[in-house]
């Protein structure tokens, strides 16, 4: 029997060590079939595809530095007196959480750096997810088959916000405590259940002695655990679907053009991890973030001016600041609309972008897979909707810092708040109209370029004295790239009379869909792309160049 093994084609004795290890692992894990499909997997190249990588890498950095911080942080609200090396706080009463954060910052060598890398990476993680999400949105990468992955990404963004919030609340400093108080006030505004949720979350009245320990387990275990699962799922789906690509010569909906994972993509993406980590480490060494020692420990009766949450909470902050203080008192109960409505808008506004892929696929009725990305201009209504959404978000970000805006630009706080109140409604409408027109303008320019060529900048004088600009015809590559996109036709309700002449009542949803479809793809919303006939007629006719 043993001699039979020696006859096997793989002569183990001579194979290099790496190969032998791989063989060993394959015999137990089946890694070869996995590697066969993936080792030379093709990844297309475009600068915007690295936005997602920034998110992934900052997430890894957050986990690495976070584990380090747990070695020194004490998630306890026991009151202690400070005797550490930071002189201005000597003898102060503070919670153990705050004290251990001071210790990390002043007494653990390199602790401050890791703390600041952790915080900067969190800020970049959220910003990266926001921009990455916008990239996916504006290029239509969320379309079938990637809707689920869009939802995974969306959940990561939302959970990221709450992980960030629970994280910066842990040091129990005056600034973050104020943020926790705000959250508790917002929870109280919920009808019927508000006071109960508040009592259960804080283990009694605010602030109590429990929330740091509770936020701690939420921040280091519950939320990141879910997020890690989502990240893995997100990546598996990216591999499984294969990456999208922009239209171009040789790129079709049925292929993926780019460089193989081993070696190019591995080197570039792996290298990019170090680039991201390096930049964040340098920033953390140079720029201080959340200097809790300058703010002091939390006391519910003290506050500093210019209190600001981390940027990703600015939108919620803005909603709460801009909302008028409506309160309805009836039958012995209070409906705190002034706080509850912002809470609801916050949810609806986020749900809107989460559900968008399903809305668009319902309007188009398109059930095909899409692997070629749209240029934003070629989907004017979607692009306009996205810009309107971002506009509302940004207006509320300004609203969240209305006091900072007012003091920095010497404006009245009331004027800034009113600007935000009006801007939240008017801004998106204006942004929608302007964006759509810009998209249509760009579509016209593309058409012009296809039919008449590129403006070469060369001015030619004709024999009779006329000056003309020479237009340079495009190559077939360019012609193809500019005309590869597909244009939908507006959906129709269909005949309102059936074959027997009986009147058929169009359903309300059908009517709505037809209306939306008209808004998306009607004459007002896209410029018909040039046809081959048009092109031939112009190029074969009298010379125009």
């Amino acid at each position: 029997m043993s001699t039979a093994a020696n006859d096997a084609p793989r002569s183990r004795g001579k194979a290099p060590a790496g190969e032998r290890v791989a063989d060993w692992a394959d015999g137990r894990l089946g890694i070869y079939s996995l590697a066969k499909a993936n080792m030379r997997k093709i990844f297309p190249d475009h600068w915007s595809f690295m936005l997602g990588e920034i998110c992934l890498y900052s997430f890894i950095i957050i986990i690495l530095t976070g584990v380090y911080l747990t070695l020194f942080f004490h998630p306890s609200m026991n009151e202690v007196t400070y005797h550490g090396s930071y002189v201005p706080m000597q003898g102060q009463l503070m919670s153990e959480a705050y004290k251990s954060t001071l210790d990390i910052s002043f007494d653990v060598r390199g602790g401050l750096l890791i703390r600041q890398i952790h915080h900067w990476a969190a800020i970049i993680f959220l910003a990266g997810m926001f921009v990455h999400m916008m990239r996916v949105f504006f290029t239509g990468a969320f379309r079938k088959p990637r809707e689920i992955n869009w939802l995974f990404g969306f959940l990561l963004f939302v959970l990221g916000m709450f992980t960030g919030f629970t994280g910066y609340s842990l040091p129990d400093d005056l600034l973050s405590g104020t943020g926790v108080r705000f959250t508790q006030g917002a929870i109280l505004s919920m009808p019927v259940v508000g006071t109960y949720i508040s009592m259960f979350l804080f283990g009694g009245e605010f602030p109590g002695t429990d929330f740091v320990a509770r936020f701690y387990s939420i921040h280091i275990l519950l939320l990141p655990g879910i997020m890690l699962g989502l990240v893995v799922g997100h990546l598996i789906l990216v591999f499984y679907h294969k990456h999208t690509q922009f239209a171009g010569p040789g790129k079709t909906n049925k292929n993926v053009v780019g460089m193989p994972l081993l070696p190019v993509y591995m080197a570039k993406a792996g290298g990019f991890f170090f680039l991201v980590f390096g930049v964040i480490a340098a920033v953390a060494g140079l720029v201080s973030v959340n200097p809790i020692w300058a703010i002091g420990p939390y006391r519910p009766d003290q506050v500093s001016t210019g209190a600001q949450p981390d940027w990703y909470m600015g939108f919620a902050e803005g909603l709460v600041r801009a909302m008028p203080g409506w309160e309805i008192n009836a039958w012995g109960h209070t409906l705190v609309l002034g706080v509850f409505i912002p809470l609801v808008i916050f949810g609806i506004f986020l749900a809107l972008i989460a559900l968008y892929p399903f809305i668009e696929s319902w309007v188009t009725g398109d059930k095909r897979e899409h692997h070629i990305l749209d240029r934003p201009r070629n989907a004017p209504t979607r692009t306009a909707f996205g810009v309107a959404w971002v506009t509302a978000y940004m207006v509320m970000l300004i609203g969240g810092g209305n006091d900072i805006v007012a003091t920095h630009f010497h404006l009245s706080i009331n004027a800034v708040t009113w600007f935000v109140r009006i801007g939240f409604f008017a801004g998106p409408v204006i942004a929608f109209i302007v964006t759509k027109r810009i998209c249509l303008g760009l579509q016209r320019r593309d058409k012009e370029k296809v039919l008449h060529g590129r403006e070469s900048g060369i001015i030619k004088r004709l024999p009779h004295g006329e000056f003309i600009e020479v237009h340079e015809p495009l190559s077939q590559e360019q012609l193809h790239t500019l005309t590869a996109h597909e244009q939908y036709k507006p959906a129709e309700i269909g005949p309102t009379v059936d074959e027997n002449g009986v009147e058929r009542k169009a359903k309300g949803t059908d009517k709505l869909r037809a209306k939306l479809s008209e808004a998306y793809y009607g004459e007002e919303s896209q410029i018909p792309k040039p046809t081959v006939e048009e092109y031939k007629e112009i190029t074969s006719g009298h010379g125009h160049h």
Partner: protein
Amino acid sequence: MSSQDIPEENLPAEQDAPHGAVKVADEENPFADPGLPPHEHRIQDIDEQAAKRSERAVALLFTVSMLATIGFIASFVAIPHDKSIFIWPLGHINAMNFALGLTLGVALFTIGAGAVHWARTLMSDEEVADERHAIEADTETRAKVHADFKQGAKESVIGRRKLIRNTMLGALTLVPLSGVVLLRDLGPLPGTKLRHTLWSKGKLLVNMNTNEPMRPSDIGVGSLTFAKPEGLEEHDHDFQNEIAKAALMIIRLEPDSIKDKRELEWSHEGIVAYSKICTHVGCPISLYEQQTHHALCPCHQSTFDLADGARVIFGPAGHPLPQLRIGVNDEGYLEALSDFEEPVGPAFWERG
């Protein structure tokens, strides 16, 4: 680098026709996909010297990384952790944090830069096309899976034995309730906790800064004083919870300038006491404008007119700040005449 150094046979193939000429391969459809463009060689592909230079650049970057790591360890050991240095334009910053951040940043960044430079200049940059396959299964697979499922469901007899199905669903629905019940002891029920504070009849108003009870003469017109109830000390275990409700703002107005009748009644010689906790979401109000008698919450800019029953005149707060009824005791000290008549802080469903 001159082109003479490049061996003839390594030169890239003739480039496309000079610009200006249209190259439309497909006469029928000029918009048709011309297929992947021919691969263009980089200088490193055809010139070994250029490739050598790239190799040296990558190696240099990796070497810098090693040096930076050594620098990191050296900074960790050598720099006192409380030393601060002046770096323009950052100002005075912690020397160790600066050195550690910079060396770690360089050590990591140069690894990345080396890898990316290596990939861009020395690894093959030929684009390759991979086929995509439909995500959906073909009809055959689909039919097989559906048939298998039906077979499995049939063999389980779950469709036929409804009693099993229904009791199982019932059991699975009920069992998570134990988990919900277990959450009950996360905290007490609200009860009337949010309605009461430490204030009560006869409690002295104690100055937050001096920790002394106050006489009316201690409070000047136009000043803002923060107060707490007597007996509440900073190191008390429930200090945070109590001060979160009992914190008080005391100001002195000219009695004629008080517009609200009840405010005047509950004041003493123009001294009025209001809850310091904002009725919006509970921030402590700490900005006071003595000319206008306006108090402003620094968190969300709710503005209250303290001369007019603390009416909300701007911002997101929904109702006035609760006022504490005060007077003077036999010894001439300011005291509370009762608890707040309404809950302090943010509004809630049961507030009414």
